[in-house]
């Protein structure tokens, strides 16, 4: 059962359906090439974000706190509608087209700013939560159709969904680490690590805006103008 949950998670992450969000996640995680530890840390935060999402869903659904149909339909509908605009906004923050201005300049505000900075660990965790809850047809079928019956059968509201969540983040995490570490080596060899970091961030911002525009088109604009 544990292996099955793990396998369903791997299948979810390698299926072509969430490819765009995986590219965004890989780009996001691997951009912190200045320190390989940061790449790993960001990747772990992203994976924990995914785990938390599925774990909460598991607790709600296995505990029958909400109807599976209602929750599944609501998530598939609303999260995908919000995904595009949110990704565009994050991309704008990464490109510094938008900056976070909070009232006051105390130490607490600065600390808060640093925490919710879209480049920080909390940002990666929230990204994991957002991507996990933005179900595409394949991930919805695998989570609600394969993982959930397994979790219900075992009455496992925490362990199986958490293992599934871990597995959905794992291939992205491994790929991002490989990419981040190899980019770090190349940059170090040429002594251009800061310039590399600067460009990696810009590229990630552009990737987010492109993917966000794609989702906004597919889920919002295209159905509205009837071009779908």
């Amino acid at each position, binding site marked *: 059962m544990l292996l099955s949950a793990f396998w369903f998670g791997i299948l979810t992450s390698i299926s072509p359906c969430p490819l765009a969000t995986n590219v965004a996640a890989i780009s996001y995680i691997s951009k912190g090439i200045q320190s390989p530890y940061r790449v790993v840390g960001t990747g772990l935060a992203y994976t924990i974000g995914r785990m938390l999402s599925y774990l909460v869903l598991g607790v709600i659904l296995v505990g029958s706190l909400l109807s599976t149909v209602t929750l599944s*339909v609501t998530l598939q509908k609303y999260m995908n509608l919000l995904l595009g605009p949110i990704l*565009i906004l994050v991309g704008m923050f990464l490109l510094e087209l938008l900056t976070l201005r909070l009232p006051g300049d105390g130490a607490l505000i600065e600390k808060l700013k640093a925490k919710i900075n879209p480049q920080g660990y909390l940002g990666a965790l929230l990204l994991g939560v957002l991507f996990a809850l933005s179900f595409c*047809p394949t991930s919805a079928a695998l989570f609600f*159709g394969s993982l959930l019956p397994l979790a219900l059968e075992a009455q496992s509201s925490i362990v199986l969904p958490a293992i599934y969540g871990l597995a959905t983040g794992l291939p992205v995490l491994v790929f991002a680490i490989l990419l981040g570490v190899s980019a770090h080596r190349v940059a170090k060899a040429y002594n251009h690590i800061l310039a590399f970091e600067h460009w990696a961030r810009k590229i990630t911002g552009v990737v987010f805006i492109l993917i966000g525009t794609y989702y906004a088109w597919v889920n919002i604009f295209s159905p509205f103008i009837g071009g779908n």
Partner: protein
Amino acid sequence: MNAKKIVRTLLLSIVCLGFALVGYQQFGASVFNASENIDVTTTVSPKLKDGLNVYYFYGNQRCTTCVRMEKFTQKTLIENFFKEVRDGEMQLNLVNVDLAENQHYIEDYELIFRSVVISTSKNGVETEWRRLDKIWELANNEVAFQQYLTEEIEAILGQTHG
């Protein structure tokens, strides 16, 4: 200024317009439905009153696997049930459940995710239906997919006629 300001304004406009449309679709649903361009596939395929309906449910967001399964479903009907389809005893309905007028199917068939449903009707009344969720497990195996769908259709027809 320039370029940076223009890009910022443009992107913020897309974001605001996106949020506005989402809000409009959710809260101004009745107005939106009246003016909406209706998908041809959903309107030209009325539910068959006497016979077997095969529903393929999809959403605005298509995926490679979904498109492939749609093709498998169409092929199964053409190759194995050509006579029934030709004689008007069987009908394939491709239904976008993200359209407001089709959302009742989600409740009707408890569609937790996109799936295929087969349903028999007599005198305009549905007599039996089955949701074929196993299609997702067979999405990479056309032979097994077609066999599964064929067997389920034959079973529900056998039950009806038997």
